[in-house]
Structures are given as structure tokens and as C-alpha cells.
């Protein structure tokens, strides 16, 4: 199974042109990660995975398959039962400055303004107030929240809250942005807008992104690479490079033949697991 997975994943072979813009060495290596929770739930079963540098990789799988678990393990928030994660060739033992998370439920401090929330990662690191607020203000503008610096989260819509969550993650200047179903709590139109805005933003910010979703369309629209996870206990069932040019106008992508074909192919693959 491992060998065949590799076949479907050209970028893993050193020197293959699929490496493309990405450096030859993956920025994150997940090696044999297995997770069994204390209550006996077996969430992950031997995940092997390389995340290419500078690309957006999506973990796609059904709800409850262990996507959040895998993301938390890569983030260093929970230790795996077995296996290792390495970031830039260093084994992960806890959270690090090279990784920043965007949360499904936003995880904003309700008692803090947008400005303080966005600066919070820097506040925890002891960056002086004036400096961190200047950095936060820049990212608040970049995500399109200018003018809302002094509002509280309960005064913002879901889409705007997630913009704040994204700005907070960008503000700490980590190499890797990890987004756990960031747009799932937002209504459909706003989700599309957020997806488009994320793509524009990523053209300016040079980041490796690990994106989690259970939406095939969202995965194909955003990703350079899609990792399909099977149902719990989760394994990597396939890896697919979309080959979509993300620098084209956002509305073009949804009409791109590759986009449409990839959505179909992934659906064909996933269908088998639904029986």
C-alpha cells in the first residue's frame, strides 16, 4: 500500500518535476503516526505523509476521520501514540514558532478587541505593545479588517471573525499555516469569498499551508496537493496533485478543466468508501 501511495505522489520522488516551485525537501514529514485516545478510540493508523514546502496541502476526509487529530499532532498540541512528526528535519515535541494555527471555531478571546486578538500570539512571546500592535494592524489591513481594530468578536460576523483568526496566525510569521476547517462555520457565499481572498493573500505571503476540510470542492479549489484520508482509524488512501494554477483570477479556477476533472475523480474515489 505504501509503495502504491508513493506512485500516486510524484513529488515524493526526489528530483521529479512535480517538485516544481517547492523545494526538494518536504517541510513536514509525518512518519508512521498512530493515535489512540485514552478512551480507546483509534483515530489514526500509521499515517505517512510529506508536506511540500511553499504549497497548500489539504487533508480531505469524512467527518470524524481524524483530520483535527492529525493537525494537532503536527502542531505539537498532542503527542502521537506512535510515530513521529518532523518539521524542517527536527522532531516535533511541542508547539513551535514555525507553525501557526487557524481554528475551526475561531478561538478568539471574547473579551479582547480585534487588535489585541490579532496581536495575541506576539503578546504571548513578549513583543512590546507598540511593536506588536503595529504588526497586527498591518495584518488586519491585509485580511481586509481595517476599521474593525477596536471591535469585539461578538460584534463581527463569522467571516470577519475568521479573518481575525487568520491575521493572528499570519502575524507571528510562521513558515507553516495550519487551518482546521477554517470556513466551515461560515455561510456558503461568505465561504467562497474567504476562499478567494485566502488565495490572493497566499500569493503575497510565502507560506506552506496545511488545510483541513471535508469539502471536495474547497479542497480542489485551494490546493496544490490533496491528501485523502480514509475513515477512522485513518490512513492515507491517496494523494493527488491538482495541477491548478492558483495565480489565475479566482473565478477562473472554478471553470478550469483540471478543477472539474479533479473534483470528479476525487468523488469517484471517495464513493467507494461510502458503502
Amino acid at each position: 500500500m505504501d509503495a502504491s501511495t508513493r506512485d500516486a505522489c510524484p513529488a515524493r520522488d526526489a528530483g521529479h518535476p512535480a517538485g516544481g516551485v517547492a523545494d526538494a525537501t518536504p517541510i513536514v514529514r509525518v512518519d508512521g503516526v498512530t493515535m489512540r485516545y485514552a478512551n480507546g478510540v483509534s483515530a489514526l493508523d500509521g499515517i505517512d505523509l510529506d508536506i511540500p514546502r511553499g504549497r497548500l496541502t489539504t487533508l480531505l476526509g469524512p467527518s470524524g476521520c481524524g483530520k483535527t487529530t492529525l493537525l494537532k499532532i503536527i502542531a505539537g498540541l498532542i503527542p502521537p501514540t506512535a510515530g513521529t512528526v518532523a518539521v524542517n528535519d527536527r522532531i516535533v515535541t511541542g508547539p513551535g514558532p514555525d507553525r501557526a494555527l487557524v481554528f475551526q471555531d475561531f478561538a478568539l478571546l471574547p473579551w479582547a478587541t480585534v487588535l489585541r486578538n490579532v496581536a495575541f500570539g506576539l503578546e504571548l512571546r513578549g513583543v512590546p505593545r507598540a511593536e506588536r500592535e503595529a504588526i497586527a494592524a498591518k495584518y488586519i489591513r491585509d485580511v481586509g479588517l481595517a476599521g474593525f481594530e477596536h471591535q469585539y468578536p461578538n460584534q463581527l460576523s463569522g467571516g470577519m471573525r475568521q479573518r481575525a483568526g487568520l491575521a493572528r496566525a499570519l502575524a507571528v510569521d510562521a513558515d507553516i499555516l495550519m487551518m482546521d476547517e477554517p470556513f466551515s462555520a461560515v455561510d456558503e457565499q461568505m465561504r467562497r469569498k474567504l476562499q478567494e481572498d485566502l488565495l490572493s493573500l497566499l500569493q503575497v505571503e510565502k507560506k506552506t499551508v496545511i488545510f483541513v476540510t471535508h469539502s471536495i470542492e474547497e479542497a480542489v479549489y485551494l490546493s496544490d496537493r490533496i491528501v485523502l484520508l480514509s475513515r477512522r482509524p485513518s490512513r492515507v488512501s491517496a494523494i493527488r496533485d491538482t495541477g491548478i494554477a492558483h495565480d489565475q483570477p479566482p473565478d477562473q479556477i472554478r471553470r478550469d478543466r483540471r478543477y472539474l476533472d479533479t473534483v470528479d475523480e476525487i468523488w469517484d474515489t471517495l464513493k467507494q468508501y461510502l458503502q
Partner: protein
Amino acid sequence: MRQIAPSPPPGTDAAVLPRAALAAPGIATPAAAEGASPLPAPAQARRAGGLGDAAWPWQLASFVLVLAAWEIAGHWPVSLAFPPASRVVAAAAEMALAGDFGRAYAVTLPPLVAGIGIVGITGVALGIAMGLSRAFEWFALPLMVVLQTAPIAAIIPLLTYFYGVSATSKIAAVILLAAPIVVLNSYRGIRNTNASLVDMCRSFLGTRRQQVTKIMLPHASGMIFAGLRLGVSAGFIGVVLAELLISPTGIGDLISYNRSIARYDKMFAAIVSILALATVTLSLLQRLENRLFRPDHAVP
């Protein structure tokens, strides 16, 4: 296991252009797209104001209604021991002018303030410790649960065996009544910390100390202050009970003395004075909480 065929040969199209090399405008117009605010302004004010501005006409109406009912019931009369509101107000004015309240509260307030102070500091600290540490939880939780359900009024007279007829007995009564609710609320407040906020704090490299001070305490402040408000109410009850049951002094003496000489208007005036004082204290406490921890509840 089925495979998906690799995508078209990469390196042949625009996908290989580095993203960073392509200048992109930032993100445009979310405010226009999402609307400036999810709520219309009045709704927002109501939510933000909490007990504040929008609620006061109702509070006033309810107050007037109760006073009117009381006045009518007093004139009915329901009982000789139930004077109308107007006579109680007159009695209160008379007592205030004669300095009765001043003398009574000079005796009642010090043990009350001392008891509340002790509970406010050590009770909150104990509750927080119980929320943070299994050892404290194991040690103190059963005691607090028992204290909360025990009929403390029956125990208060026994305090004289330990502390005699003294201010110390009153302080002990205040603590016995106020502590359980303050401790348990603080404990639950910490325990209910939003797990996602803690993950957020850890992922952005927050230390355990920062987790406690920047996430758990502000998050728990609502429950802690709710506990303090209940504790203050319980403390008022405690000190009056002690004055009624142990040593007829202070405001408790004002109540029992006037009852014994059938000056029910004065007795009710004394009771109402306690209610008024408790209400003012509680609303000050609410303001303090908002100012210290929840500025988002106080936005205009």
C-alpha cells in the same frame, strides 16, 4: 486500494510559477461584502448593555408596581404586622435622622466586610486552585458541597461555643454562608475553560502561567463574579442571622427590638435598608467585573 492517477505533467503550466512572485492586491472589501455588523445597532446595544441601559425602564416599572401593591396591601390591611410602604419609608427617614442606621451599621458592617473580604480572597483562590489542581479538588470539593447543602442556620448558634458572643462569631457566620458558593463557582469557572482557547494559547507558545492569567482567569471571571455576588447576598444573610441568633446587636438588633415592641414599620425599614445596601453592593461588583475583565460587556 485504488489510486488516483497523477495530475497532468506538472512543470508545463502556470502552476509552477512561484506564488510569491506574483504580485497580488491584498484582500478587498470584506466590510462591504459582509456588512459592517451582524446586528442592527439597537440589538447590539441591548446585547452589549446587559443589565444596563435598555433594562432600566422595566426595572423601574417593576419597582413601582411592587411598591404600589405593598401600599395597597398595607392599607387593606393584610395584618397589623404589615404596614403600608409609605409608613415604612417615613419610619426609615425618621430612623436615619435619629442616627439609628448609622449606629447599627457601624456594628454590622465591619464583620460583614471582613467576612466577605476573607471569602473574596481566600475563597476565590481556593476555587481557582481546585480548578487547576486535582489535589486541591480532591481535598476541598466534598467539603464545599456538604457546606453548600447543610442547614447553616442551625449551626450558627453553635459558633458561640467557639468564638463566644463576638464579632468573630459573626465573621464565621458570614464565611460559612458565603464561602461554598464563591469557592464552587470559581472552581467551575476554571474547569469550564474553553478547550479551544487553551489550545490556541499553547499553539502560540503561551506558557502555563500565561494560560492561567490570560485565558482561564478572564474566561472564568463571569462565573467567579457571579459566585461573589451570590456570596455577598449570602454574607448579608449570614451576618443578620448571626445578629438575630447569637448576639442582638447592629441591624439584627434593630429588627428584633422593633419587632418585640411591635414597631413593624421600623422593623421593615431596617430590612429594606439591608436590601438597598445589598443591591448597591451587587451592582458595584458587576461594574468592577466588566471594567476588570469583560470590556466587551461594557461597550456602548
